[in-house]
């Protein structure tokens, strides 16, 4: 399967040629090569050994998550560090962190599609899968933090004998709708894009069971002209509908903080700032996943160095947008003349959580600056490390926002230093177990690359010659 695992990376001279960039797909002569390299993974009897190691590890962490949730349900939310004044501790931090990760996939498949970025085809499928799984992890935290989880259905606006209605003026409820809509549309988008590829796997299936299962999900796709026509229309429409969702979800998440009158939360730049941060962390996670995946499953010819370099640039750009927001918040905290706002920001940078603040700034704003150098944008180990830094930095950003604004509130007598409990930490670690378990299962059974879309950006899809870049639409 890993026929392409050891193909040569693009050379510097190829990558340096900005006007005639190297083709998006390398070393693949025919369409069949693409089908073969993607489908053979799901068809193989065994996965590479590292897959089993990773899967076992992920399962262990998933087990930890299960144990922690059991402990939580049987004991109560007191097992967490949440207390006065930091009533919002790890659960909201983890929720926002995972929702943020879940932004890159739909951005890549919808927004970059509308911007006609052909390079998205190599990475869109598994980024979308990553999105779905990240949103699953995110959804877990609000659900388990309600305390009496057996009455969680109260959050839904259903009539009941107590005349209890959710508070529609609360952004937490808007979140339920925003994340719910996003999850639904992302799932539909992901699934719909996969239908032609599932049909390919159905047609290639050697066993009855596989044929049956892939067949069910392929929805009777037969590759006719009419099917393709409708598929492309639906894709365009879903892309147009999903684009505002990419912005709205994290905007609504930012409202959770920004509508409150808490210094450090209540500021107008929060919605676009959160969206930029989400794209930033999402792309970092795409890099964290795609760098090992392309080597392990042999996708170096589809996810080339050019793709990786472009992703580094996106990281750099969004990292600086986040830096812009940090700077504006700081400036306005002074300019507003509001002493509480001013105190909060000084406290963030120089108070008891200065270590967290400077971890955030170093990881999010300073570390991506190395991508100004093209050598850094082409050095795989370095990129992998920076992508991890960004993941860490973005987790800390949510930690800094949540905890530093709460731990020294308006009432100095209640000031307190927040420390997570071991359950907090293990639950966070466990959520990675859930994420990676789902992701590794996806790698095992589903087409990791959008076969038909990648074929569309190959020169052979454009028999009349291509003009440098090939637009797939």
């Amino acid at each position, binding site marked *: 399967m890993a026929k392409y695992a050891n193909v040569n990376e693009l050379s510097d001279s190829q990558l340096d040629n900005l006007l005639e960039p190297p083709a998006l797909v390398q070393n693949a002569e025919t369409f069949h090569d693409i089908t073969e390299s993607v489908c053979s993974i799901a068809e193989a009897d065994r996965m590479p050994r590292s897959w089993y190691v990773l899967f076992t590890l992920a399962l262990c962490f998933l087990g930890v998550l299960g144990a922690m949730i059991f402990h939580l349900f049987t004991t109560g939310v007191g097992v967490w560090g949440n207390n006065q004044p930091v009533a919002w501790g790890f659960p909201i931090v983890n929720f926002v962190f995972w929702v943020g990760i879940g932004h890159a996939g739909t951005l890549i498949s919808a927004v970059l599609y509308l911007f006609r970025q052909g390079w998205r085809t190599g990475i869109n499928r598994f980024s979308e899968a990553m999105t779905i799984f990240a949103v699953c992890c995110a959804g877990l935290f609000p659900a388990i933090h309600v305390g009496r989880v057996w009455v969680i259905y109260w959050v839904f606006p259903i009539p009941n004998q107590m005349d209890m209605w959710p508070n529609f003026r609360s952004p937490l409820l808007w979140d339920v709708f925003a994340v719910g809509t996003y999850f639904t549309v992302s799932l539909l988008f992901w699934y719909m894009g996969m239908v032609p590829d599932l049909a390919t796997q159905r047609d290639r299936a050697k066993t009855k069971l596989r044929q049956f299962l892939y067949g069910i999900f392929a929805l009777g796709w037969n590759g006719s002209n009419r099917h393709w026509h409708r598929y492309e229309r639906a894709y365009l429409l879903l892309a147009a509908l999903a684009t505002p969702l990419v912005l709205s979800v994290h905007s609504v998440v930012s409202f959770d903080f920004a*509508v*409150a009158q808490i210094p450090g939360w209540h500021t107008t730049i929060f919605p*676009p700032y959160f969206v930029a941060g989400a794209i930033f962390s999402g792309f970092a996670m795409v890099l964290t996943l795609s760098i090992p995946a392309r080597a392990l499953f042999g996708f170096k010819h589809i996810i080339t160095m050019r793709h990786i370099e472009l992703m580094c640039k996106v990281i750099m750009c969004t990292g600086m947008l986040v830096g812009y927001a940090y700077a504006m918040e700081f400036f*306005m905290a002074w*300019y507003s*003349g509001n002493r509480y706002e001013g105190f909060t920001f000084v406290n963030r940078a120089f108070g008891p959580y200065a270590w967290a603040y400077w971890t955030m700034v170093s990881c999010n704003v300073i570390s991506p600056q190395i991508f100004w150098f093209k050598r850094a944008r082409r050095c795989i180990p370095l990129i992998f490390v920076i992508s991890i830094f960004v993941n860490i930095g973005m987790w800390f950003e949510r930690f800094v926002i949540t905890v530093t604004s709460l731990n020294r509130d308006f009432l100095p007598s209640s000031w307190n230093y927040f420390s997570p409990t071991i359950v907090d930490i293990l639950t966070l670690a466990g959520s990675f177990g859930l994420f990676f378990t789902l992701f590794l299962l996806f790698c095992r059974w589903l087409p990791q690359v959008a076969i038909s879309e990648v074929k569309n950006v190959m020169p052979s899809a454009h028999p009349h010659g291509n003009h440098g870049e090939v637009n797939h639409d």
Partner: protein
Amino acid sequence: MNHTAPTYSADFATAAASRLSRAGFLCGVVGLAVAIGLGLAEGDHMRHFWLSYLIAFAFVLTLGVGGLFFVLIQHITGAKWSVTVRRQAEFAIGTIPFLAFLALPLLVPLFSHEGVEEFGGLLWSWVHPHGDHAALITSKVPFLNVNFFVGRFVGYFLIWSLMARYFKNASIEQDKTGEHELTVRMRTRSALCLIVLALTYSFAAFDLLMSTDPAWFSTIFGVYLFGASFLAIHCFLVLSTLYYQRQGHLKKMVTIEHYHDLGKLMLAFTIFWAYIAFSQYMLYWYGNIPEETAWYLIRITSPWTNWSWIEPIGHFFIPFLGILSRHIKRKPPLLGFWAFYILVVHYIDLYWLVAPNLYPDTVPFNGVEVFALIGVVGLFLWKYGQQAKQHSLLAHRDPLISDCLAFQNY
């Protein structure tokens, strides 16, 4: 890239540009003269005139700096679709040094001591802190003081002018030499320039517009003006292209596909503007903290109520529905109508950001605003036309031009 790429010829629109330039100059002189006359007749130390001039100036500034954003973003993304319309944005940025000249009259209301007792100053009341917020405003003096303010604007215009000069000249030089390396160099340099531009323009937005209410603040204000400017430049490009095509230029070089793409970006940034404006409004409304809502309170209570309704309805819902359909975007005259419409509401938006701060109890809008706008836009077009007179309307030797023409929306 095809190695047998066809060659394209330059497109000099000397006559059309001269007509535009002459008409612009005439409008400029007459418009400003009438506005000054009407302003003098009001006997308010020219306060109303200066308000009108400030907004008209801000309007053309959003076109000039919006153009700079446009050009830089095309380069950094390696955009191909825009090659045949980019030159017109390059002419727009060529006016930036002239815009610095247009900013000079604003020194008069800045330094003037007139009207201090009656209204606390002509435009920027922080020059003479007074009233309820005097102590608060005094605390901002390290930033809001006349010398630093003037110094900042000198800095902004110096930086913007240098960037504009470089990107315009490099593109025009490519017309002569056809050197591909220029495109690569512009792309590399656009990265740092964009960062500097984003920061300087945000602070220019705080200085020029936001500080007309020195007590109020909003972290999103810079993004707000960026969104509005980027929307405005696309509308301007549509109108400008329509003008030159009517005059027989750019005939096969700007096609329906380019209009369609411009229209899509107009739609996108209409939505983006609404997103930013809503975020700011909703968060302040919901938080309901007096120092933040004061700004909106004067806008949503009479006599500004009706103007405030123009923002969501006129600046979002109407143009959103207007340009949503692809059929509209693919009919240049219709798209031109919407581009003009959006520029009108863009002016109203800028006016709405500032005027209620100075006139909380009355809507002063009358002929002064109209003639000041005609005057300043006229002068902008005068300079714009002069640029276009000398150079080709088309970056005809840009290495990406074949790709620009080959593309089709389906």
